[in-house]
Every structure is written in C-alpha cells, then in structure tokens.
C-alpha cells in the first residue's frame, strides 16, 4: 500500500523533493512523499555506481513510473557508499515507505558544510505550499 503523506522532522530537504538523513560524515538519500505521489507507482530505479561521486543540485540517477521519468537530484555532494538493491529489485518499495525501506543511496559527504544549505521540514512545507 502506498504510504500516507508525511515529512519527518528529523530529515533535511531539498526543494527538488529529495531528502537527506545526515549521520556524522555520511548521509542517506531518498525522495519525498510529494515526489512519489506525483510519479505514481515506481517501476524502475536507475542508480549511480557505488564509488562514483554525486554533486549537490545535480542528477545522480533516475526513477521511473509507468508514465514518467524523473531525475534524482542530490541534496549533498559525496561518494556513493551503497545503493539500495531492494529498490532496484522492487521499486514500489519507495511508494510503500519513502523514508525507510525505500531509501535510495548512502553517501560519504564531500562537503559536510553543505548541509547548512538544506531545508528543515517547515521550510520544505513552505516550498510545497507554493508548488
């Protein structure tokens, strides 16, 4: 079942509807409920390779629903430590649990100070209100 709308307060957000869970010098990245709902049921995840670099504000991969393709925008820069294989095999995991089992990649931060530029949940909700 698709998850209900939510935006956890412990996450940082990017205006392109991506989230980051920062822990020390690492971060887990995913897409928000809003992005998932707009896309519909996901059927494909095109991940970056482990060991490659992702750059803040740039595309690091794609997700696709039956009807649409969407770039994944990195909220932070870093090196890809791990890609969520479960989402590659079952992309609908993201619809079911966008902030939990449906995470997309884990990175080691290249510029830990970049996190200061991310949105907190209140600021992200304001972005949504203007969308």
């Amino acid at each position: 079942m698709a998850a209900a709308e939510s935006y956890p307060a412990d996450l940082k957000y990017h205006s392109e509807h991506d989230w980051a869970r920062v822990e020390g010098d690492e971060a887990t990245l995913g897409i928000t409920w809003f992005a998932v709902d707009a896309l519909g049921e996901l059927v494909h995840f095109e991940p970056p390779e482990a060991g490659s670099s992702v750059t803040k504000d740039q595309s690091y991969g794609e997700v696709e629903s039956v009807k649409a393709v969407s770039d994944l925008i990195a909220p932070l820069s870093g090196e890809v430590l791990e890609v969520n294989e479960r989402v590659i095999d079952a992309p609908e995991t993201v619809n079911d649990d966008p902030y939990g089992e449906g995470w997309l990649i884990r990175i080691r931060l290249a510029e830990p100070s970049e996190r200061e530029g991310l949105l907190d949940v209140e600021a992200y909700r304001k972005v949504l209100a203007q969308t």
Partner: protein
Amino acid sequence: MPETLLYTPLHERHVELGARMVPFAGWEMPVQYQGVIAEHRAVRTDGGVFDVSHMGELEVEGPRALELLQATLSNDLDRLEPGEAQYTLLTNEDGGIVDDLIAYRVGECSYLLVVNAGNRAVDYAWLKEREIPGSDVRDVSDDCALLAVQGPRAIERLGLPPARPFTFSETSLDGVEVMVNRTGYTGEDGCELLCMSEDAVRLWDAVLERGVVPCGLGARDTLRLEVCYPLHGNDIGPDTDAISAGLGWACALDKEFEGVETLRRVKAEGPERRLVAFVMKDKAIPRHAMPIEGGGEVTSGSHSPMLDIGIGMGYVPSAMAQPETELTIDVRGRPRRARVVKKPIYKRED
C-alpha cells in the same frame, strides 16, 4: 492545441472519484484513479471501464456512402453486413495513415466511424472534401459518449449475451439506450458502449454499480501496448505506411482506394523497415523516440504490468525484424539490450 481543454460528460464523475486529470488531444482526461498498475490488472483479470468519450464519431449515410468509404478506407467494407464492424485505415495518396478507426455498418446505406480524438477534425474535413452526391458525412461526436468496458468478466458483469467480436447490437442497459460494440483496445473480451451524451452519467454509474473498476488513459496505453495495438501519432501516422506497420491485414489491396498503388509496391518489394515488438533484456524502460542502434527508433515504450519488464514497439530495418534479434536501445545515453518478439507481447496462458 486549443487553450481551453474540452470536458467529456463524465468529467465531474472523474474528479469526484479522485482521478488525476491530464490534457490529452485537447481534452482533460483521467490518466489514473487508484493507479495504472492496479487498473491494468483489473482489466486483465476481471473488468474495467474507460471513458473514451473524447473519441470522434462520424456518420456517413446515403446510397453512395459505401462508394465514398471504399475509395477512402483501406479495408473492404463490402465484407460487412449490417451489425458488423471492421478495423480500417484512412490513407493518403502516399499510402500513409491519416487515421486508424473502426467502421460500423449500421444499416444498408449507413455507416458509423469511430475515430481518434486528435484526428476527428482532420478525418471529417478529409471525408467532407471527397463527398460525392448521394453521400453525406456528419460529425456527431458531441452527441455521443463512449465507454469501453473491457476484461474477461466485463460482458458477464454487464449481463450481456455472448456475441462475436466486431459485431454490435442495440439494447438497453439499466434503462439507458446503448449501442453495444464488441470491440476494444485492450486485447481482452469486452465491449464499447455508445450512448447519447445526456445519458453518459447514468450509464457510467450503472457500469460501476456492477463492480467494474474505473480505469484511466495510463492503463489504456499499457494494455494496448502489451497486445501491440498501434497508437496513431506514435506508432503510425501520415508518414508511415500500413505494410511497414504490419497492418497489411487491414488493407484490401485488390480494391482501389487512395494510396493503394504505393501499398502494393511496398508489399511487392518488401518494406525497408518494419514495426516490431520487443522486450527488454536489461533493466530499463524504453520510451517514445529513443534511437535503436542500426537505424531504428522506439515509437512506443513502457513498463509491462503483466510481465514486469520494459516493453515497446519501434521501427527497425527489415533485416533486424526477425524474432529473437537483439536490439540496442539508447536509453538517455545508456545502451540497453532488447529482444525482438512475435506480436502480441503479452498473451494469456490458458
């Protein structure tokens, strides 16, 4: 494109049901209600209903209606008795496909053409221009609503008697006068119900009350792609001919109609390229207009909800059209392998 989108008589119903509405061929149409995949599976396993009232209906009547249509449509209408229908093509002088449509022989001298929404004006003007004394073409689209009820249990749920594909009859369904056409665009058993616009809401409600699932254009597209029905504007068009598109079966090359010489020549010489169906070997979803290595192009591509892989159709040089040929598709810069398969891509195992 008109700036204001047109609404079908069921627009309010779609919004009430929570459908996601999108622009399509000048109309605001439901692309999905609960979700494309669930709706797709409902049609493959039980029954779903699509509002296809955006499609056009043209009436052609008169003692010389048959003569007009025989000269403009590719299939042989002489084969039809009243109460029968056929898939056919409106062709240009180069053998290109102006539109694909279903022609219904309503009476001795009376025909109904159900045409694509985006081609309604073109088709009407095309036929009007070629009208001959004794034939009369009228666009009656605004008077009509059309519901496609499709799926293995669709007919049973509607309580309709069995009938052969491509036949039609008039009946009353829960008090609404309908023309029941045993046609569709999903590869499943089912029918298309034509009624007067003012009866559309009553008919829609009656169909839903019988447990049929509302489905949007998203599922309509994946359903037709799994069974390789071409989509005009994507897979076929004024610049593609019926032989290359694999639609020679809908062309009576032994009669005279516009573009027939070209089609005879293409058939005799063999087409340079062919519209093939393929399934992805690599994980990727092909999309319209992606290049195929060796001089081909994807014309339709999506994810198959039944097979759970990327599938598509596209034109390739004839030498690459044999089933099992490996294709390489350029998926936004990434080479991804596919395999040519026999049409249809999906067939129920039973």
